[in-house]
């Protein structure tokens, strides 16, 4: 088994095929999209491949250490940030091929006109613990 992170981006991914922002869909299309996402996660829970999923607010803060006895420096959010993560799903699957298959299904979530969004999702393998047998 191998764990993969599926990343969905607010910004930073190449343009989707059906690239209409959600607030331009009909309310029914919004609902259909949400339903598809929920069903997808529920199905992965049933197959034992779902680990975790979370949506993130679009606005965050940059923080860094500013030296002993000083409060951390904060900055942002930056409107010009090129890469902005919208959320993630962690899956635990048997193979890379299976991970790609699932990411493809998620990317097929319906959007404007009820047609698949063809959204680009980023698939990132986890680094895993050192194996017991190494030679």
């Amino acid at each position, binding site marked *: 088994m191998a764990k993969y992170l599926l990343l969905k981006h607010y910004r930073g991914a190449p343009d989707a095929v059906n690239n209409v922002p*959600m*607030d*331009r*869909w*009909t*309310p*029914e*299309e*919004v*609902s259909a999209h*949400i*339903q598809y996402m*929920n069903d997808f996660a529920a199905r992965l829970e049933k197959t034992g491949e779902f680990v975790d999923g979370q*949506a993130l*607010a*679009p*606005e965050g803060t940059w923080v860094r250490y500013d030296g002993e006895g000083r409060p951390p420096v904060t900055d942002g959010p930056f409107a010009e940030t090129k890469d902005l993560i919208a959320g993630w799903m962690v899956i635990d699957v048997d193979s890379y091929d299976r991970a790609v298959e699932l990411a493809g299904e998620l990317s097929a979530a319906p959007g404007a006109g009820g047609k698949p969004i063809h959204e680009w999702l980023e698939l990132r393998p986890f680094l895993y613990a050192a194996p017991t047998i190494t030679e």
Partner: protein
Amino acid sequence: MTPSLDEALVRSLTPRVLAVLVRRGADFAAAEDAVQDALAEAVRAWPTDPPKDPKGWLITVAWRRFLDAARSDTARRRREDRADEEPAPGPVPSADDTLWLYFLCAHPSLSPSSAVALTLRAVGGLTTRQIAQAYLVPEATMAQRISRAKRTVSGVRLDRPGDVATVLRVLYLVFNEGYSGDVDLAAEAIRLTRQLAAAVDHPEVSGLLALMLLHHARRDARTGPDGTLVPLAEQDRSRWDTRSIAEGIGILQAALARDRLGEFQAQAAVAALHADAPTAEETDWVQIVEWYDELVRLTGSPVARLNRAVAVGEADGPQAGLAALAELDPALPRHSAVAAHLHERAGDLSTAARLYTEAALKAPNLPERVHLTRQAARLNTGGDG
């Protein structure tokens, strides 16, 4: 909890037994261990030999366990056994001890998240696993939070009652968490508030209980079949729980009659006016504005001011609502959602659509985000959803 014991009985007894031990001078963490030991023994003994007085039985056994543990502990540390010098167990007070436990678990030295966890554990009798599931954190994390909280309050000796307001804030937090996983925190908060109301006579405890019952009554109607949020005005009022509403209103009226108004009574009064309206159109918004005026006077809370602007928009028209809104900080949570709603009612649909989109981006949770996105979508596409 074990299936062989009556879970409701055990969960109602556990905090009272724990309170008695702590009151007799047992350290909080040690007292909890002793109560758990006593429960384990009850699982063994009760099926064949059920006690006439389960609570007295648990107190006796738990106290013995505590003394045994204290003895071996002190022996290990080669110190004088002080536990032997503890006064003999006296008569067993009940309601008073539970109340005392509420104060301890909501002690101001605890952070809100610790107070919530400890209250659910010690007063609610939930397992650490259940609390962890309810708050979507790993069990080890919750176990650590609870044991730190126990250590924090271990040294606290309450010789007079604490401030009931701190307890109410904790219960309010639990209620607001709603429910996730297999633990219904809203129902648990109602149970704990009911138990508190039985132990202490205070109009704000009644106010909070009424507020919870009135909101809980609308829970089924608040979510559509697809999990989306259904706003108050669009809810199917036949799905509201009328028994819960009647109980909430009764409790609230008795509290208000005592003429010691507080924020929870005022919030409950608003909820009661909504519950009283047979249709959304028949809502008495003028009275609701008056209650929000009281709430603003009592708390000065910006959230109360924001809700007041919504009510003013309904009572005196959207322009009056927008005027009330103009006095508030636009950075307030849900400010743009309220502005969108008022602009829509005022007929400025393009501004409303833009604000709904903005509000969706700022929404603090997914159901609200989806709801607000749908509002924007409805205006942008001329849909009716």
